[in-house]
């Protein structure tokens, strides 16, 4: 700890500003991690590993802040660290108040960091928070806890500091080091290639005065696994011991346990560097079964609710910080994607030209072209995967939001998330966050009832909101489900009548519920601070539609509501079906194509003279003739379109008439608006194998056009 602080003073020697951005990014990540972990904490029986993870976050921020001279950040994280350190050593019992103050500190840190970054001018005074945290940290110590004071992982050669020092020292400067206690430890080293190394460890204790006593716990010979064990009496922390041992053996090979079998509950800051310390220390203490608490606290249930698998999850989650990653700016990735898009087009051109060659005479070239195609496709997939990030990025913001909101509304709610690992394009994630936030907020505000109302209906006091994400074919389905009061069909219909909407009683439930998405529609009895102003659901739908997705709502009065959002995985590439109309080629998003049928002109009937419909499988579909929509010039005498493609968008179907089906292929979606403007009926453009541009149809527009 102290070595980090001292690094701060030497930091002035050279310009650190170039590293600021990295620090800010990492700090933001650490803060987000910390918040997630805090919200996941079970106040009754906090998990050691979770506390350690939170501690690591605070510690990393502190280290960075001190190095860069952000004293206020370092001060605040320092006291947080002190509190967390005492918690993870089980010297203090976790309380909801502590979680609150730590969460607030997280917010304050975000503010402080924003100011340092120049993103905000707001001057924050964290001194009150510091005092509050310190009060928490001192609280039990002042009450005279029997347990000996903490052994802080300070310098190894610490001589005993007077026990008279208060447990929490002034913020700045060296942390008070309470009297180190001598502990008896079982240390197992190995498997070792050279058994002599273990003896060198033993020599350390002879060479360093005050380190402690060591005695071989075995008879001086390695066991069957080439391991040696020792019994050590020492006042040094595990971390210091490990630091010393690394002179001779690597950390992974050393495991330290309290003599008596229980692993030492010490997770020293050293493990931030990612040593597999905890892999060796199989926890013997299984977390106590979760107790439902009556606090308005949101608990995120892990995908598997039982305690055992949860533990298995942990290394994954915490190692997210440690895994080898590379920070690359999005522009660089996007440029890569553009270039690969170019490559795909060039490859398609080559393939097309190659088709005209004699396959016998150019056998080798043909083979190479096939290789090129495969490699290009693989390259494209890998590059696209760079932009894919897990839904957890979005989901992680909801526990905090719901926690605060539930407290404000006096409701109780538990949030379950499923499929956080489902990946989605970064651009999509950014654009879906706001609509999703709105849906989740609605679920709590409109869906979940107050605790009394719930008990009266025989429901558990705490409502449940479930967020799930999963891949379905080429798209992702995100679901927001609550077990609240659901939607009342009657209420919606009455409201719709009041608004003068075109509704009737014979509408199906499904149709009625979709009215929620109409502009200006809100059935909330009261407009709350949170929602109910009727802006929102229509905006949500519009945003989702603009992403090429769809949104649907289902509800059962009294049982809850489910909103399903479907989105394409990426905006950059999609599966397309190319169709010919006259001499022109258009691309249809394959996802919206239901079927294509050879057309018999007889099937087309006219309705009221102008509109035409066609009967497909006992359903009359409006007919949209693409050549008419796009005024395609026809040179030959019109023979009429030969193929009908049934497409679906926004829950409705239409039949598109085209001349010919050309093929199916992945297309790189290009923005038409970058240099031109929005064209009605066209959602974008792509580049065909011959280098020409083809327009991508906006199926939603076709459907709306036919329906109105």
């Amino acid at each position, binding site marked *: 700890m102290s070595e980090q602080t001292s690094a701060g003073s030497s930091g002035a020697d050279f310009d650190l500003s170039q590293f600021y951005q990295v620090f800010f990014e990492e700090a933001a990540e650490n803060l987000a991690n910390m918040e997630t972990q805090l919200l996941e904490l079970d106040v009754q029986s906090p998990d050691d590993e979770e506390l350690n993870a939170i501690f690591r976050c605070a510690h990393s921020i502190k280290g960075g802040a001190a190095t860069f001279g952000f004293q206020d950040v370092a001060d605040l994280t320092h006291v947080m660290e002190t509190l967390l350190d005492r918690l993870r050593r089980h010297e203090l019992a976790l309380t909801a108040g502590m979680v609150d103050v730590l969460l607030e500190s997280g917010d304050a840190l975000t503010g402080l960091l924003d100011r340092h970054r120049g993103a905000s001018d707001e001057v924050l005074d964290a001194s009150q928070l510091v005092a509050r945290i310190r009060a928490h940290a001192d609280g039990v110590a002042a009450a005279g806890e029997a347990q000996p004071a903490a052994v802080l992982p300070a310098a190894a050669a610490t001589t005993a500091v007077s026990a008279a020092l208060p447990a929490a020292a002034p913020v700045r400067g060296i942390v008070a080091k309470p009297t180190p206690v001598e502990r008896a430890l079982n240390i197992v080293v190995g498997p070792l290639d050279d058994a002599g190394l273990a003896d060198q460890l033993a020599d350390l204790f002879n060479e360093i005065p005050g380190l402690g006593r060591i005695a071989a716990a075995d008879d001086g010979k390695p066991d069957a696994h080439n391991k040696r064990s020792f019994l050590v009496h020492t006042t040094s922390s595990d971390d210091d011991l490990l630091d010393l041992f690394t002179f001779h053996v690597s950390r992974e090979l050393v495991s330290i346990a309290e003599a008596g079998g229980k692993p030492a509950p010490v997770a020293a800051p050293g493990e931030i560097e990612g040593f597999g310390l905890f892999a060796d220390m199989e926890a013997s203490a299984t977390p106590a079964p979760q107790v439902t608490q009556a606090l308005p606290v949101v608990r995120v249930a892990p995908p598997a609710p039982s305690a055992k698998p949860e533990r298995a999850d942990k290394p994954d989650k915490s190692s997210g910080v440690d895994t080898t990653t590379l920070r690359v700016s999005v522009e660089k990735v996007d440029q890569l994607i*553009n270039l690969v*898009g*170019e490559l795909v*087009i060039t490859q398609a051109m080559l393939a097309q030209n190659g088709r005209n060659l004699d396959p016998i005479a150019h056998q080798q070239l043909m083979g190479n072209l096939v290789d090129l195609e495969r490699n290009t496709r693989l390259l494209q997939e890998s590059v696209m995967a760079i932009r894919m990030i897990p839904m957890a990025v979005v989901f992680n913001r909801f526990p905090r939001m719901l926690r605060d909101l539930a407290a404000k509304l006096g409701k109780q709610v538990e949030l379950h998330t499923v499929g956080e690992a489902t990946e989605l394009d970064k651009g999509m994630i950014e654009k879906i966050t706001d609509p999703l936030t709105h849906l989740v907020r609605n679920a709590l505000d409109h869906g979940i009832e107050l605790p009394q109302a719930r008990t009266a209906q025989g429901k558990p006091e705490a409502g449940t909101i479930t967020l799930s994400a999963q891949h379905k074919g080429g798209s992702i389905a995100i679901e927001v489900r609550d077990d609240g009061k659901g939607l009342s069909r009657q209420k919606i219909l009455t409201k719709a009548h009041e608004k003068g909407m075109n509704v009737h009683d014979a509408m199906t439930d499904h149709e009625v519920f979709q009215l929620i998405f109409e502009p200006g529609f809100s059935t909330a009895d009261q407009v709350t601070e949170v929602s109910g102003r009727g802006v929102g659901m229509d905006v949500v739908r519009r945003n989702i539609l603009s992403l090429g997705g769809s949104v649907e709502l289902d509800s059962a009065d009294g049982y809850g509501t489910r909103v399903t959002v479907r989105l394409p995985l990426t905006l950059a590439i999609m599966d397309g079906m190319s169709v010919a109309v006259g001499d*022109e080629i258009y691309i249809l998003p394959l996802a919206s194509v239901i079927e294509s049928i050879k057309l018999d002109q007889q099937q087309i009937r006219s309705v009221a003279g102008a509109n035409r419909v066609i009967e497909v499988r006992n359903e009359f579909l409006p007919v949209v003739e693409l050549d008419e*929509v*796009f*005024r*395609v010039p026809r040179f030959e005498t019109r023979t009429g379109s030969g193929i009908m493609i049934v497409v679906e968008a926004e829950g409705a179907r239409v039949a598109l008439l085209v001349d010919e089906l050309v093929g199916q292929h992945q297309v790189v979606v*290009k*923005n*038409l608006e*970058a*240099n*031109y*403007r*929005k*064209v*009605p*009926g*066209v959602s974008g*453009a792509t*580049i065909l194998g011959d*280098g*020409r*541009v*083809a*327009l991508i149809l906006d199926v939603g527009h076709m459907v709306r056009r036919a329906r109105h």
Partner: protein
Amino acid sequence: MQLAETAVQAAARGTVKPREYLTFRLGAEEYGIDILKVQEIRGYEQPTRIANAPEFIKGVVNLRGVIVPILDLRLRFGLGSVEYNNFTVVIILNVRNRVVGIVVDSVSDVLELPPESVREAPEMSSMVDSSHILGLGTLTDRMLILVDIERLILSPDMAIIG
């Protein structure tokens, strides 16, 4: 600091310094546009038609992966249409980060025009809003119509932005 000052001085002098124009022909007329707005010059290739667009928007082409709209200035200026041939040229412009191509009959040359040889254009009713005409440049035996191409391209009646 030294560098910044010279840059400022250069900028100040730049107002005096004659500008360079790319000149091109549309029928019998010769036009000049600021060379700095020109990204490149290419041959004409058949663009992909865009439905329901004004007649002078020929469509969009693929310029190394960028979708670029192509306008025909002849049609825009009401000079009548002409068969595109091997000499038909597309000038790719870069105006305020938008890439737009204009079809012209041929590109003549790049000229430096001293300010004293630029006359104000007389008020006249034409297909082109006179506010888009910077002036008339005079050379020994030629007259150049100097067009503020950025304003022209981005003007609402070009239907490029919307």
